[in-house]
């Protein structure tokens, strides 16, 4: 893999996808009456510097099996909408009580708690609606879209991301693995799986994507936490998040071991897709990016 890996330019691939996805998201939420709710939704979905990792993973997974990128965009956008919805709700005062996100005031800080709850409530169904109304059904059979909707609903629901958020608040012994898997792994898993479903991947291939996405989703977060912990030593203080991370539970050393393990898990999962050759490169190089952060992406300059 490595010689090809060196040739594949993830940054270019990713950056060009971000541009397209941002534009499609912008078009997907035009401001109408009552204006304030659309503005609240747009504020979080179109936040500057968003990396769009879930949509990119979805598109990349779809393209492995020869799926059409255009046909994957509506689902990719939907992933970003439901992702934004759960982040908005996670930040609420009755939850993590985070006044800011990505260096900007969080949704409820800007629009009020009531509007933030409703913006989340509106973004979940908008995601599903967007898939139904924007996916060209001459390219993707309806039955596949139904599976995509079910997959996204499962991922954000009571045994998925909502469960992770609940355990994060609730605590309890050994909660950290559960919280990380659900809060961060589900979104990665769902993103990769949706791409495969759209392209008509086999059940076995979907299973590989599931393992891959799960591992990368958690890896991405663990590395974020490690980097943040390291920078906090330098800058000191600033963050009072109570989130259960590997770093806060076991310390940086152990978190780095976990990251190493997740990295090899993710790559092993892709071995099962070897026959697709170079087309697996985007997902493959994404693992290295998640682990090493070799370049910066999506940051507004």
């Amino acid at each position, binding site marked *: 893999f490595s010689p090809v890996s060196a040739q594949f330019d993830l940054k270019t691939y990713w950056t060009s996808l971000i541009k397209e996805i941002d534009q499609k998201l912008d078009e997907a939420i035009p401001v109408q009456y*009552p204006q304030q709710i659309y503005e609240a939704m747009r504020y979080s979905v179109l936040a500057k510097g968003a990396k769009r990792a879930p949509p990119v993973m979805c598109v990349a997974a779809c393209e492995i099996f020869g799926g059409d990128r255009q046909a994957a965009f509506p689902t990719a956008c939907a992933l970003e909408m439901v992702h934004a919805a759960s982040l908005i709700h996670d930040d609420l005062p*009755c939850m993590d009580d985070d006044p800011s996100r990505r260096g900007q005031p969080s949704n409820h800080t800007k629009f009020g708690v009531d509007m933030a709850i409703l913006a989340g*409530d509106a973004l979940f169904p908008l995601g*599903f609606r967007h898939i139904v109304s924007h996916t060209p059904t001459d390219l993707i059979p309806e039955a596949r879209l139904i599976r995509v909707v079910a997959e996204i609903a499962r991922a*954000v629901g009571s045994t998925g991301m909502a*469960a992770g958020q609940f355990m994060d608040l609730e605590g309890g012994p050994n909660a950290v693995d559960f919280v990380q898997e659900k809060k961060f792994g589900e979104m990665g898993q769902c993103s990769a799986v949706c791409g495969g479903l759209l392209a008509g991947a086999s059940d076995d291939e979907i299973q590989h994507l599931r393992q891959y996405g799960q591992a990368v989703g958690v890896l991405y977060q663990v590395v974020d936490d490690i980097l943040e912990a390291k920078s906090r030593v330098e800058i000191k203080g600033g963050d009072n998040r109570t989130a259960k991370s590997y770093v806060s539970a076991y310390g940086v050393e152990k978190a780095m071991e976990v990251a190493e393990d997740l990295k090899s898990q993710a790559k092993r999962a892709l071995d099962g897709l070897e026959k697709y050759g170079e087309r697996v490169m985007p997902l493959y190089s994404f693992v290295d990016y998640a682990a090493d952060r070799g370049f910066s992406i999506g940051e507004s300059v």
Partner: protein
Amino acid sequence: KVGTSEEESPFDFNAYVVEKANFVNKALDEAVSVKNPAMIHESMRYSLLAGGKRVRPMLCIASCEVVGGQKSAAVPAACAVEMIHTMSLMHDDLPCMDNDDLRRGKPTNHIVFGEDVAVLAGDSLLAFAFEFLATATTRVSPDRILAAIGELAKAIGTEGLVAGQVVDLSCTGNTNVGLDTLEFIHLHKTAALLEASVVLGAILGGGSDVEVERLRTFARKIGLLFQVVDDILDVTKSSAELGKTAGKDLVTDKTTYPKLLGLEKAREFAHRLNVEAKEQLAGFDPEKAAPLVALADYIAYRQN
């Protein structure tokens, strides 16, 4: 007697309601089981199984049957619309929204489980409604299931429930709310989901485009009717009779139909909506349309 009809009808509405409500309650009970983490699922079940009237599921099933579909085709959709209805009540009751402590005669979800769980359980019910509709609907063609998913999504978001709640919140304390705005609120807050209930049933039951649209108009009329009657009951009934905090709309200065039109005019408006709704059912087999006729009457003449 529930739902005193104006005209004599051989259709036994009471028996129908009891049978269908039991059926729907059982289906909902089975659909949402307690999984890990238990508390979210208990919170979901607490509100979902709190004994609502199940008007939306009944409309969904009746609409499926009126176009000639089998009841089984509409059962997951019937459950889904009730899940959505429940989650919207859970979120509307939150302290930052309408701040209600009482719902259906019981403490509201956040009073029992806390605000955090009430938000998450509401989100979970929203998601599960789609998962259940997508996975549990059998023997219906995928294009119809997908259309149903699209209709349900439209009814919830910024062109439905959420839009209604947003405008409702922005009008609280404002005494200058006009009829247009009031109607916007109710068409979105109440009628949209009743419409989706009926339309989902018609789509999944195999209805033609013309049939679906006729039933959509029927649903919009009874949706508005539902809210007009709710407003009337709010000024004429006590909290104990309603099982929720009565008169709250007046206390918080919310505009209501009786306030805007006067009680008599509001009642006339309700009557007209009921008549117009039933006109939409003229083209259907009268026997199969009987439950929808009776449901419209029930909405018009209910006492709580």
